[in-house]
């Protein structure tokens, strides 16, 4: 199953952020979406997940995302937003369990009990099982990030869209996150190969988790190919307008 974008334009109010994007995500791929601040990475993820209005077409398995029901999209794509405001203090378990909403009653979770079991597994995988009964407003930034990651996994979707998942995580958890993503990416959900599309600001993490890079600049794709080519000094200079290689040396 592929996700195909054709001529995507999108923005907020009168500001056009994406100015015509064409590319395809094939199932089983591990795609890094990179670019400087404001280049359109977050907007692109939201368009791919059918969350914000856009011009052009986003086809998921041949179906236009705009014509699909939200639940149907969420069963295929789990999007973890960059920022997550917490307004009411749900417990960690309640939060992760809500992730199973889209797939409840479907083939993924036939009933509530199997959803609860899966939520427990996701909490364990993301290292938050021991925080199960804690309230969200009692967690540190890193703990909250891991809880939201567990909730995203709990959707049980084959396409995982992560917007800066390493935010607030210390180096140990960043390394664990990469391992977790690599293990997950090598598996399948139902008949579909697991597919990762992620935005990272940490290029080292991007290299460890992804094999393909789609680099954006001012709302346009300026590179699409192997991630090792994207990380070459000349390309990074072109993308960030900054000598990244010297900075990282």
């Amino acid at each position, binding site marked *: 199953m592929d996700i195909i974008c054709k001529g995507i334009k999108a923005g907020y109010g009168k500001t056009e952020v994406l100015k015509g994007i064409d590319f395809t995500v094939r199932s089983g791929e591990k795609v890094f979406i990179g670019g400087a601040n404001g280049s359109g990475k977050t907007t692109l993820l939201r368009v791919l997940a059918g969350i914000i209005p856009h011009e052009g077409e986003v086809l998921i398995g041949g179906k236009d995302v705009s014509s699909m029901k939200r639940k149907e999209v969420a069963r295929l794509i789990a999007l973890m937003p960059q920022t997550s405001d917490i307004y009411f203090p749900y417990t960690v378990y309640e939060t992760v369990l809500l992730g199973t*909403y889209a797939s409840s009653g479907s083939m993924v979770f036939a009933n509530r009990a199997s959803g609860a079991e899966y939520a427990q597994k996701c909490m364990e995988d993301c290292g938050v099982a021991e925080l199960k009964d804690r309230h969200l407003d009692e967690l540190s930034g890193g703990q909250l990030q891991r809880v939201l990651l567990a909730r995203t996994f709990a959707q049980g979707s084959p396409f995982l869209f992560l917007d800066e998942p390493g935010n607030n995580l210390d180096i140990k958890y960043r390394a664990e996150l990469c391992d977790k993503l690599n293990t997950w990416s090598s598996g399948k959900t139902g008949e579909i190969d697991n597919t990762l599309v992620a935005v990272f600001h940490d290029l080292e993490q991007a290299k460890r988790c992804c094999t393909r890079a789609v680099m954006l600049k001012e709302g346009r794709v300026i590179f699409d190919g192997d991630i090792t080519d994207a990380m070459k000094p000349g390309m990074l200079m072109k993308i960030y307008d900054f000598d990244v290689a010297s900075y990282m040396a």
Partner: protein
Amino acid sequence: MTKKGTGLKIALSAVLCLFILILAIRQGSVYISLKDLFGIIGGHITGKGTPDGIEPMMDSIFWTIRMPRAIMAFLVGGALSLSGACMQALLQNPLASSYTLGVSSGASLGAAAVLILEISVPFLAGFMLPFAGFVFGLATVIAALLLASAIDRSVSNTTVVLIGMVLSLFVNGMMNFLSTLYSDHSKQLILWLMGSFSARGWKHCAILFPVCVVCFVFLMLMSRKLDIMSFGDLQAQAMGVDAKKTKIAAVLVCSLLTGVSVAFTGVIGFVDLAAPHVVRKIFGPAHKLVLPMSFIYGGAFMALCDLISRTLMSPREIPVGAVTALIGAPFFAYVFFASRRKR
């Protein structure tokens, strides 16, 4: 919270609520024993009439005046709190309510128009004022939603709240203009605006009760969606909830609850903010508990406030809206600051 702990809290809440309801029926210038009260209720339910040894006047006071009034207060308190709990989740704002979207302003304008212009529709008889209040309240919310949709395709919370507030202010301005032009009616209008359960009978309960049941069932079926909406529109969309459709459906249900309540009793504030807040402190934020418990707590709180309103300065009656604010505001402040200190 363990299941056993939650069960105990629910049981205690139900007992407290029943206690307050019975208290609200029994207390007043005429007092009745529990045995006689249950005798009267039993007599009417079984159709046997007034039991022996109970004066017909007592039967009339308790069955036709006190009971429907207390039950009406309970239903209105419950309806407003249920609507408040739902709106707070939808707008991710613990201080939101249907009033934020202009229901009360719209209802007030409708009532003012009926009083001032002396409009009457024969088949509505005594229900003209509540009917106009309800229709105008609902119309204001629909106008707010339509305007919000036209301005912002995603119907974001900020747009909804801002449009609601702008419409509220506009409608309030129109009402002030009307009451200045027709100052003879201003006293009547002020009384309606402060809310009262005086002279509310079974016929009012018979309308409000099914509305509450239908809206409650509808919102309970949405409880998981409301939990997800509590995380904001973006996260809700990502998790498979159509934020726009959910918001519009729930706002209309909340407006129905608030509109019918306001229409029967006038504007009574505060309960819709305080009850859900207290309930979340006790039971946590999950809506499968927040919704029913808000109804129970809001209902009990309103029945208690109405009891105070009619007994504190008896035979004079204090507007119940003033009592809810006088009791509710310090209590709300205490709960809020106590929880902050604890944290």
